């Protein structure tokens, strides 16, 4: 009997120790969730320093962009514990703050001396605050980004094409600075045979399922003076969303899509745009700054062959905002570890290394460095773009607002249904219904 008792005690102790082991190892482990793209690889590299300094193992959950929102928002909604840290889209801030998915970081920032004034103001407002532009911080600006353009510099430099373009348009073949110029340049290249291959004018976003076409269309809308509301915070969208300028912007985007995109380009987002450019099909293409380091390094189309430019103007200068902040997930079992990562990441030296590895730091120590503009061929454009960014609604109901816009824009631009005015009028109606349901109208 005594033997049996001893054996039982031993087994119980062993089980207890064994059961405790995973939680011990969990304490020294953090999972960071983000989208699967080029900057994520840079972050893995950067985080090795954090592991070396703190002994905390970093695990990463990178989800491809088309599924990123679905996957991560499902995770948050279901109270999952997959992510300790999350680099989530700026539009998620409203919902995540109101639903208690993110930890409010004001007290932590105060305690650790992390100042938001050390980061670019536009980035702080976009990636960290909710309600927008108020001193309520739910994230640390992690990755500045905007939608911009790149082009085949070597094609633009061909003397015969320059002469032909001059004869045709009366101006030099150069980077377009306005939307009409962009369309004109795209039309010029479209269908041309260059280096024995038929090429197309421009590769732009047309994706339907997630956010693609909205992120593309807004480049033309914002540049033409599109506003979400007449009075900020009043939700008075009539006359703003469907203003004549907005209609003109939408028509320009459709014109660019119809005249100058490669065949089969009806559902294209980041990957397809990169493919079209890298395969030598497109003279110009839009995409996020995040991809530019990779493009510049590309053996076939990078280096001297590629050039970059910010979104051309319409009636105003504007770019569609990308980028994200890093938040601590309220459900984490390792709050101290997650906060320690934020503290480490906010350091100017870490931010500088983040930029050098291919991440878009928005810390003033990086952006205000005199050498920043020349540090990469797209760095100066990045600064310009970040000073003119505009973002989609950051409302808690952003997902429904986005879906409505995806549908209206795709129906008009790709499926040829109705006019630009009808599409934007329909959008006002959809959004008014959504805000009506929310009790905001």
């Amino acid at each position, binding site marked *: 009997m005594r033997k049996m008792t001893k054996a039982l005690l031993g087994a119980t102790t062993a089980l207890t120790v064994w059961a405790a082991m995973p939680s011990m190892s969990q304490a020294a482990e953090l999972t960071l969730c983000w989208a699967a793209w080029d900057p994520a690889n840079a972050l893995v590299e950067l985080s090795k320093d954090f592991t070396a300094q703190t002994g905390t193992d970093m695990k990463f959950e990178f989800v491809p962009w088309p599924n990123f929102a679905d996957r991560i928002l499902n995770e*948050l909604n279901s109270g999952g514990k997959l992510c300790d840290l999350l680099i989530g889209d700026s539009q998620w801030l409203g919902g995540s703050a109101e639903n208690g998915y993110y930890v409010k970081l004001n007290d932590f920032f105060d305690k650790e001396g992390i100042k938001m004034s050390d980061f670019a103001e536009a980035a702080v407002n976009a990636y960290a605050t909710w309600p927008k532009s108020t001193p309520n911080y739910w994230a640390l600006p992690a990755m500045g980004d905007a939608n911009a353009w790149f082009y085949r510099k070597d094609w633009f430099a061909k003397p015969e094409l320059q002469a032909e373009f001059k004869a045709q348009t009366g101006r030099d073949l150069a980077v377009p600075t306005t939307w009409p110029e962009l369309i004109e340049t795209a039309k010029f290249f479209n269908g041309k045979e260059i280096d024995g291959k038929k090429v197309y004018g421009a590769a732009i976003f047309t994706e339907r399922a997630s956010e693609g076409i909205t992120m593309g269309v807004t480049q033309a809308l914002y540049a033409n003076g599109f506003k979400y509301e007449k009075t900020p915070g009043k939700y008075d969208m009539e006359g703003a969303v469907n203003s004549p300028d907005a209609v003109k912007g939408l028509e320009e985007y459709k014109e660019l899509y119809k005249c100058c995109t490669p065949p089969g380009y009806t559902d294209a987002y980041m990957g397809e745009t990169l493919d079209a450019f890298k395969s030598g099909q497109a003279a110009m293409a839009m995409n996020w700054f995040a991809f530019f380091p990779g493009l510049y390094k590309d053996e076939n189309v990078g280096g001297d062959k590629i050039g970059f430019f910010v979104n051309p103007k319409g009636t105003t200068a504007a770019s569609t905002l990308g980028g994200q902040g890093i938040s601590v997930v309220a459900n984490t079992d390792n709050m101290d570890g997650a906060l320690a990562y934020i503290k480490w990441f906010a350091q100017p030296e870490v931010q500088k290394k983040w930029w050098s590895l291919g991440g878009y730091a928005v810390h003033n120590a990086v952006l205000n460095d005199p050498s920043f503009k020349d540090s990469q061929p797209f760095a100066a454009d990045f600064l310009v773009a970040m000073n003119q960014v505009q973002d989609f609604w950051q409302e808690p109901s952003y*997902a429904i607002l986005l*879906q409505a816009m995806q549908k209206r824009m*795709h129906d008009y631009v790709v499926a040829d249904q109705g006019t630009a005015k009808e599409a934007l009028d329909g959008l006002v109606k959809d959004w008014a219904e959504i805000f009506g349901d929310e009790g905001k109208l």
Partner: protein
Amino acid sequence: MTDTNTTILDKATERMVRATPVPLVHRVRGLSDRAIAWLFIAPTILLLLAINIFPLIWAVRLSFTNYRANRPNAIVEGVGLTNYQRVLNDPDIWIAMQTTAHFVFWTIVLQTLIGFSLAYLIDRKFRGHAFWTTVILIPMMLSPAVVGNFWRFLYQPQIGLFNYVVSYVTGVPPSSFEMLGSVSLAPWSIIVVDTWMWTPYVMLICLAGLRSIPDYIYEAAEVDRASGWRQFWSITIPMALPFIMLAVLFRGIENFKMFDMVMLLTGGGPGSTTEVASITLKREAFESWRTGRASSFAIILFVAVFGLANIYVKALNRVKQR
């Protein structure tokens, strides 16, 4: 010899009875056959209740509320029939239903015609018919995810084989048309893929029907000097009809809730041209997160499919009784 065997069996039974714990014996003895039967099926019933019936009841409950799965802290309020009213008055949902009806109708027509024709040919038992049956069945054995991706490449206007084949036959340049990107062609591109994949299934069911027709009926018809055409219309079709109707029922239900292949091929686009009801439902439930409204739409779809299937099954039974 028999006595010896009986003695051994008796002894063995006695030993087994003795080995069985007395309380268990009493307990089992106390149960009726019906109770024991219930004991056996209870786990399955419980499982069905948990994963089928409970979610259904829960969805019905949610359909009368403003619940949103992405707002766990929000107050859930009853909204009466508002969700149903909005769904039924939403023109986009009616367009999605029309798209679904178009897809279901044409896939069923094509699959039934081609499937039955193939079954009729295979039933002739020509040389190598077993080999060809296997070849025809291959598409059905593939995963819809594989088929969707595979056809997406085939339809690609610049490198896709489909456009090149059409170009070879018609002389139209391959890049001049887009199967998945064109408003008029996209619905047909999905119908083509679904027909390619599921015609073998219809063929199998029709083949079973054709093989179930006894030879003596045809022999009697031969004696009566009935023509082949007459035999086809008076024997083959009526006797295979219950099987054909069964295939139509299966394909109808399956295609009414078609999601994966359409999602992979077009994602409902271009615009909303190929947005079938299940994709609208998914967007409403998991992208817009209007769970209450999505539940009411799901219930409406369920009632529609259930009602139509019931009417159809009654018709099927009537055909079988003839």
